[in-house]
């Protein structure tokens, strides 16, 4: 097993894949964290922004819509990550592992 790990580690394809995967993870984390903290910080420091109603004949406020938005965004981005991982990352991963295992044992 250790030999296979070394061979995978020496494969530039593997590091390219890891980088793509981690770039996506961190980007999505940043987007969710940003929208979440934006919502929280507006509540803490600028509550008046969220107190406005969405229109003249509704009592729904910007704050409530924003809260619903954060939840929907988090769930949607999860979907995107999983779709990416299942569509692309897994296939590339299998190729890298198969390649490393097919090489003659040293």
């Amino acid at each position: 097993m250790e030999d296979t790990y070394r061979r995978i580690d020496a494969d530039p394809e593997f590091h390219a894949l890891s980088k793509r995967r981690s770039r996506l993870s961190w980007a999505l984390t940043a987007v969710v964290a940003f929208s979440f903290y934006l919502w929280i910080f507006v509540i803490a420091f600028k509550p008046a922004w969220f107190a406005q109603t969405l229109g003249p004949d509704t009592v729904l406020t910007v704050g409530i819509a924003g809260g619903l938005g954060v939840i929907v965004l988090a769930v949607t981005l999860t979907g995107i990550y999983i779709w990416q991982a299942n569509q692309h990352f897994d296939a590339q991963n299998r190729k890298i592992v198969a390649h490393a295992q097919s090489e003659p044992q040293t």
Partner: protein
Amino acid sequence: MKKLKQLPLLFGLGLLAWAGSAAADVATALHNMFTLPADTSAINTKAVAMFFGFVIVSLGITFWAAKRTKSTSDFYTAGGKIGGFQNGLAICGDWCSSAALMGVAALIYSTGFDGLIYSVVPFGAWPLMMFLLADRLRNLGKYTLADIVSVRMARVPSRTLVSSASLAFVIGYLIVQMVGAGTLISNLFGLNYEMAQVIIGVLIVVYVAFGGMIATTYVQLIKAVLLLSGATFIVFLVLQKFGFSMNGLYQAAVDNSPLKVGVMQPGVLLPDPVNAISCGVMLILGGAAMPHVLMRFFTVPDAKEARRSVAWAASLIGYFYLLTFFIGYGAIAFVMKNPEFLDAKGVIIGGANMAAIHLAKAMGGDLLLGFISAVAFATIVAVVAGLTIAGASAISHDIYANMLRHGQATDAEVMKVSRIAALGLGVLGIVLGIAFKGQNIAYLIVLPFTISSTVFFPVLFLSMYWRRLTTTGMVTGGWLGLASAIVMLVVGPTIWKDIMGHPEALFPYKYPALFSISISFVTMIVVSLLDKSARAKAELASFDDQFVRSQTGLGAEGAVQH
């Protein structure tokens, strides 16, 4: 090293002694248990019938699961054979405790908009768990969190830290659930508090000791289905009253609430930025690293199924928290001015925690009330079962099999210890539940979340993402963080001032997480960087292998055998 090994044992004994003295009045407790409440008309027969229905079905499942629980792998992780969808439902079950249904509704009922913050907070924690931890955890893990850490770190010190913290987490969370459950069940079914503790304790021991992870998963699954369908049905009935106009519902809430339009606007929940940020960090990092939830990633066959389960869990939990937006405001619209649910002074009967339950009665009469009561009961039982199996795994797999027997114990021996541990935790839950009767449990939830955010998150994150982490650094930082968290909690406003009655708290903040997490992270990093031992060099060198495994899943437990 010898001394370290004794720590969890000493810790457990200390806790037992403390629990024993707290429950000194056993006779009173026993007497209360077998005395019916004075007002037997409070017993809701439909609720009791549905409650028995749930108990019978769950015991049937346990019987079925017991025949399939042959090895330790079956016991801890259901043999890694749970499908992504089922596991997603079960994670949803673990995540949405009774606090999610009744607590969030209660907060919205009493504070309006500010209560919504608790509906949105989980979505700050989820991404961390999904994007940064889920895949790697599945690829590195076996049965417990300690397994992940000991892929690269020295076995005994790392397991001592993680398993002790897991037990402290489980016991802290268990108290919260048991006390909440006792109060809830005595309100709902007219049962007395002590009897409720015993019923829950016995059910949990049966589920976990005999049915292991398979029974626990299916109990979670049923509970999640019941919770989601019950909540959906209430929201459907609420919206129907307004011709499915969301604005109609919120208008009615505005008209009914003493806050008027204030019920739709941010209030004064976050007056102190340090406390607010500390509380937020605690909920987010702590929520992302709870052992009984992360353990669920080991019940699926591979990283792909782990991701599928996260997708399902995220969608279902998202859907559930969207419903709480309607349930909370529905309670304002239909409960707040309804004399049926108010006492002589106009205060809601049973406290704000009953808001969601009263709403069920207002919408669907006794039948829906009975159904939602049974759901609330199932919710508690399922979460306690999840906690118990996490605790039993820490005791039998980490402490017994790996630390005391150094991996030399047979499967049968470990199974026996697991079952005894489940029994012990069940009894401890009952004793602590009775000892803490009538206590303010809101502060107790701070302990498990502080532990989770101070120990589990830094340990998992750094061991998977940071090459330079060494055992010495991790263990020093983890223990120091844990100790500082406990000290700050004890000398903080809640315990030192409110409970012990000192005039001023020695530590000014209710939520020490921000400080204890910083201590934990900084110590881990500094000590690791200073660590020049031979062991540290070996651990550094093994990072590459761990990294390849965490990324590819090659060599992962339950993956294709080579």
